[in-house]
């Protein structure tokens, strides 16, 4: 133990005396491990550090770099959304928090090991898999997931070789959530605006050669069930040189229902109706087109086309009819939701729904008893499924962190024995200082190109810059 501590200190984990004091303290410190350095992990850490005075929080992250979907999901032309990184950085630099990057649950460390080393383990590693259409030909190269496309332009390690084929005129996006709209905006928006963002160089280069002129955004249900939020739609409507064209048939009977809707849905529907009424007024040839299409369910994939069933709404559910429609689709982007993967066999995982089985963030036991597995928690999309904005994740993470505090206070969680915390041994771990070196390097490289940063995409390169 002592030599291990010395090693940790030597490797530069803890430079301040405060940190050493805490780590070396012999009183049983409450040790909590958070797996995944995205928004859910950081918000939970923030709450725990504030409300649990005598705890140490360790964040273990698979990648060498932190921030999860804030870095790899948030669209590069939404840099303001990434301001939360400032808050996360303050949390990360709290004297009672340690960051262990490049440590993968299930590969570098098992859940059982973490549970032996900590009083509580909180899983927040998110959703990294796609829901699939379950159609023939879905594995063809012109069918890719919107999640991978986002990962590609945002520089997620491993996504750089996607090579989306942008040589055709028509892209059909299946799904109408904000990810789908982000992708449509990236495909149709002016390239010059992206050059001053942290979009990866290879993506900028590929987008500069793009021949895409029309993006179809197809949903199974109607305008009243549209999944995108109003901010994202308003942004599309304001894009220069892009016309949004709605199908008036999709909106039959909608106007009369507007008054009964709750405010958010009402304002969104009013914006769609206004845009529908305005369309054609300023039509100019040669502009690109954004084409939201409702009441169509995916049916078949063919070369250059996608076939949809015409649907009818029954109690808010889309039911396919016998009628079909074919849409041109040189490239098909699937955006019908994410699911999580099971990182360790000891996690009680619902593989059909793709999330960790839990009650208010308390993970259930692997057996079928439906009882809580004391000391194991889940927050963020891994526990709730992939829905909501950052506010949703923040509130959810605070709530789960509060449950951890409550369980400790009520002794539902035994913290009387001493726990050692994560031992890096000879693993190549990226500390927060290591991330700072990567961060500085990326910002410096970006400066030369007028970008906020140029992201490093190769893990080997990240480790080299971090100095491990």
């Amino acid at each position, binding site marked *: 133990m002592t030599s291990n501590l010395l090693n940790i200190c030597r490797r530069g984990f803890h430079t301040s005396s405060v940190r050493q004091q805490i780590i070396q303290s012999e009183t049983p410190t409450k040790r909590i491990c958070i797996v995944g350095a995205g928004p859910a992990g950081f918000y939970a850490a923030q*709450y725990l550090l504030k409300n649990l005075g005598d705890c140490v929080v360790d964040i273990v992250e698979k990648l060498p770099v932190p921030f999860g979907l804030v870095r790899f999901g948030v669209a590069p032309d939404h840099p303001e959304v990434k301001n939360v990184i400032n808050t996360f950085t303050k949390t990360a630099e709290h004297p009672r928090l340690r960051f262990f990057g490049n440590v993968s649950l299930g590969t570098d460390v098992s859940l059982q090991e973490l549970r032996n080393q900590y009083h509580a383990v909180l899983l927040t590693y998110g959703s990294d898999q796609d829901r699939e259409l379950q159609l023939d030909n879905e594995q063809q190269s012109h069918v890719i997931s919107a999640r991978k496309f986002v990962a590609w332009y945002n520089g997620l390690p491993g996504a750089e070789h996607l090579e989306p084929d942008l040589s055709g005129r028509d892209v059909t996006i299946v799904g109408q959530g904000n990810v789908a709209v982000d992708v449509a905006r990236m495909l149709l928006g002016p390239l010059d605006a992206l050059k001053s963002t942290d979009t990866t160089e290879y993506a900028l280069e590929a987008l500069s050669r793009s021949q895409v002129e029309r993006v179809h955004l197809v949903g199974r249900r109607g305008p009243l069930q549209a999944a995108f939020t109003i*901010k994202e739609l308003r942004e599309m409507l304001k894009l220069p040189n892009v016309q949004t064209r709605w199908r008036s048939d999709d909106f039959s009977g909608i106007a009369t229902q507007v008054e009964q809707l709750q405010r958010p849905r009402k304002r969104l529907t009013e914006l769609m109706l206004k845009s529908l009424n305005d369309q054609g007024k300023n039509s100019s040839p040669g502009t690109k087109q954004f084409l939201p299409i409702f009441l169509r369910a995916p049916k078949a994939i063919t070369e250059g086309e996608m076939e949809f069933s015409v649907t009818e709404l029954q109690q808010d559910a889309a039911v396919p009819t016998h009628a079909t429609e074919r849409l041109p689709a040189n490239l098909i982007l699937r955006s019908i939701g994410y699911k999580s993967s099971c990182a360790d066999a000891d996690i009680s995982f619902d593989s059909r729904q793709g999330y960790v089985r839990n009650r*208010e963030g308390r993970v259930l036991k692997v057996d079928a008893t439906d009882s809580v597995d004391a000391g194991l928690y889940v927050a963020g999309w891994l526990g709730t499924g992939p829905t*909501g904005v950052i506010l949703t994740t923040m509130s959810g993470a605070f709530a789960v962190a509060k449950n951890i505090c409550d369980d400790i206070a009520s002794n539902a969680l035994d913290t009387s024995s001493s726990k050692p915390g994560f031992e890096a041994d000879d693993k190549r771990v990226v500390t927060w200082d290591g991330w700072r070196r990567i961060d500085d390097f990326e910002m410096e490289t970006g400066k030369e190109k007028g970008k906020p940063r140029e992201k490093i995409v190769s893990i080997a390169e990240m480790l080299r810059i971090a100095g491990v």
Partner: protein
Amino acid sequence: MLVINTCRNTARLALRSAWLRNNVPISSPIASRTFSLGLALKQQDVVNVTFVRANGTKIKTSGKVGDSLLDVVVNNSVDLDGFGACEGTLTCSTCHLIFKTNDFEKLPDKPGDEELDMLDLAYELTDTSRLGCQITLSKDMDGLEVHVPSTINDARSA
């Protein structure tokens, strides 16, 4: 004057980065006393504001004319979890505040589309909801009391 301003800005930046580095909360009254260099706020520029948490506890604080309500929270390190995540850039709704009807109606600027778009994603949305980052303090707001919605919600019910 320019020199003084430059000094003040440098000092403020140094203070800010020291704060970011050490994460030691520095209470704002001390900060303004130290760095105002005799240019202390005139009393009439001070606007008293009370934030009422969801559990009813009141936080009395103050800002100066021209500050936004988000500035007031940040400058006084008002203890509101997760408040102002996007730092006032109208891309989140974490600075959602609920006004009394009278106060709401007296606000000089009505919310724009972009603010309403973000408010639509907030919890506990009311007809007198605004984003704190969009409200600029004026002298006649002295004594303002605003309600802060609960930050802990069950995400699954959203």
